[in-house]
């Protein structure tokens, strides 16, 4: 699954996700990507795109949950993403990760598996391009 999130110079946030699904999935199976609020979410606070075992992202309403934690609990983007990716998803049995950006240009790239193909340039111009854990 591929995806991107962005913040533009007008303060607008957007998210996009695209996938071929899972190898040998049942024909007709629908994953998290086209389920708005699961694999893809954007509002005035943050934008989120997810990759991983889609059924668990649907059950966790992962993208919307990250936004709700920011809005209602006052968490930072990093805290909200960590709560969903490192706590909620593993509790359900789900593996994968998200990329997210908030309205201030902060970026989060958490995952709970061995690695995630990822790249970013945050609001301060700091660039990241990595595959493995620890990079």
């Amino acid at each position, binding site marked *: *699954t*591929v*995806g*991107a*999130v*962005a*913040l*533009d*110079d*007008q*303060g607008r*946030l*957007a*998210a*996009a*996700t*695209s*996938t*071929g*699904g*899972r*190898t*040998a*999935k049942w*024909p*007709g*199976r*629908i994953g998290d*990507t086209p*389920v*708005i609020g699961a*694999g*893809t979410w*954007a509002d*005035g*606070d*943050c*934008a989120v795109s997810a*990759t991983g075992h889609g059924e668990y992202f649907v059950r966790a309403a992962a993208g919307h949950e990250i936004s709700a934690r920011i809005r209602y609990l006052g968490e930072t983007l990093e805290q909200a993403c960590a709560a969903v990716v490192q706590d909620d998803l593993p509790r359900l049995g789900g593996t*994968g990760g998200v*990329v997210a*950006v908030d309205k*201030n*240009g*902060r970026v*989060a790239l958490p*995952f709970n*598996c*061995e*690695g*995630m*193909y*990822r*790249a*970013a340039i*945050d*609001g301060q111009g700091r660039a990241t*391009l990595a*595959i*493995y854990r620890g990079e």
Partner: protein
Amino acid sequence: MPIAIALHGGAGTLRRSEMDAAAEQAYRAGLARALEAGHAVLRAGGSALDAVCASVCALEDDPLFNAGRGSVYTLDGKQEMEAAVMDGSRQDAGSVTGLGCVQNPVLLARAVMERSPHVTLGFAAAEDFARREGLDMRPPEYFHTDKRWQALLLEKERLASGGKDEDIPEDRKHG
């Protein structure tokens, strides 16, 4: 206002010891191209929506990644692609599922958001809408990669010998 962008090309069992240098270089180059495609839009004053679509199109066109051209196969040997977009400034959304011949599913998701009264379209209805919108369509051969096909054959073999669906190896699952 600052500009920012982040993208992913999949996640799973990605170990340094299991990827050769050439493959790793190709993946990193693909990620860099996609990042630049979106960031260039933002640097030019374009919208976040245009930027994420540019990045995702670059990844969909790269057969290394499991989307668009590099999509994995279903149990019956076909491809069913999905995509979604969301514009945070209007909390507007569009998504598509069950696509087999749309070159860039993300652009169809955007068309659903911007030019239909719906949020999600699937299968034949989504592809009919793509044709009406004049989006680029491709034959099945365009989306075929040997690596994904071999992954399907291996998985079918495992299932035929009593393997459980949920025990699919991580590296095979998402291509």
